[in-house]
């Protein structure tokens, strides 16, 4: 089956093929879930989840979660790296759910924050990590750095369809997203 990203340029001269995995989809209790199975070195079940949430001001947003699904204990691990040799396909598969999400929910933003961006992460990491980081914990905010690296590289392209805000952890506010700045979370709106 072939289709186009909503942000693709129809009048294009150069065509880039992007492979994604087949995803199964469900929506219930305001929770939108996508499951797919990766075919890298190992078969790994992955889950993408958009959970409807509200701020204290009653503003609605959807929290984006992504991780490996463990069939045995029926839970997610979003703390490890699979190193399964298919990161690009996995990443593209996760990204492919964003236009689908906005098709059904154009009025609500997507919020993404890595599990390694919580305040207690550095302390927990230093207890178990073998890297012996001196001043700055290299693992802290690692996931959001991966996502923003990709976003920065394709920023102009994405701006056609989306509006981005970064979370300034010191000021505790969302600010207009500027590529290469550091943020601990991002918020994505669909342009109208």
């Amino acid at each position, binding site marked *: 089956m*072939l*289709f*186009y990203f909503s*942000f*693709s*340029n*129809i*009048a*294009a*001269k*150069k*065509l*880039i093929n992007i*492979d*994604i*995995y*087949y995803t*199964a*989809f*469900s*929506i*219930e*209790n305001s*929770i939108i*879930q996508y*499951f*797919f*199975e990766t075919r890298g070195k190992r078969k790994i*079940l992955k*889950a993408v989840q958009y*959970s409807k*949430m509200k*701020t*204290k*001001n009653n*503003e609605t947003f959807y*929290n984006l*979660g992504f*991780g490996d*699904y463990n*069939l045995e204990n*029926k*839970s*997610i691990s*979003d703390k490890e790296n699979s190193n399964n040799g298919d990161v690009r*396909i996995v990443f593209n598969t996760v990204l*492919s759910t964003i236009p689908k999400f906005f098709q059904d929910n154009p009025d609500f*933003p997507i*919020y993404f*924050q890595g*599990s390694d961006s*919580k305040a207690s992460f550095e302390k927990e990491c230093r207890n178990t990590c073998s890297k012996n980081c001196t001043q700055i914990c290299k693992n802290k905010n690692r996931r959001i750095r991966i996502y923003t690296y990709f976003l920065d590289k394709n920023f102009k392209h994405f701006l056609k369809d989306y509006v981005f805000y970064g*979370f300034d952890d010191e000021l*505790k*506010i*969302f600010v207009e997203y500027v590529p290469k700045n550091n943020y*601990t*979370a991002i*918020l994505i*709106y669909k342009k109208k």
Partner: protein
Amino acid sequence: MKKEAKKINVIPISKESKNRLIQILDQVKGKDLFPEKTALAQKTLENVKLPI
């Protein structure tokens, strides 16, 4: 600068694999699989006003 189009190719899987995925999804649908992450988002955005 060359313009680029991205054509998405869904890697085909067997009918059995599709059914298996659907079965697994049926068991968890509507259940929050990321309780730690939703709690973290709730805490981070507790007193934050969204920009739009």
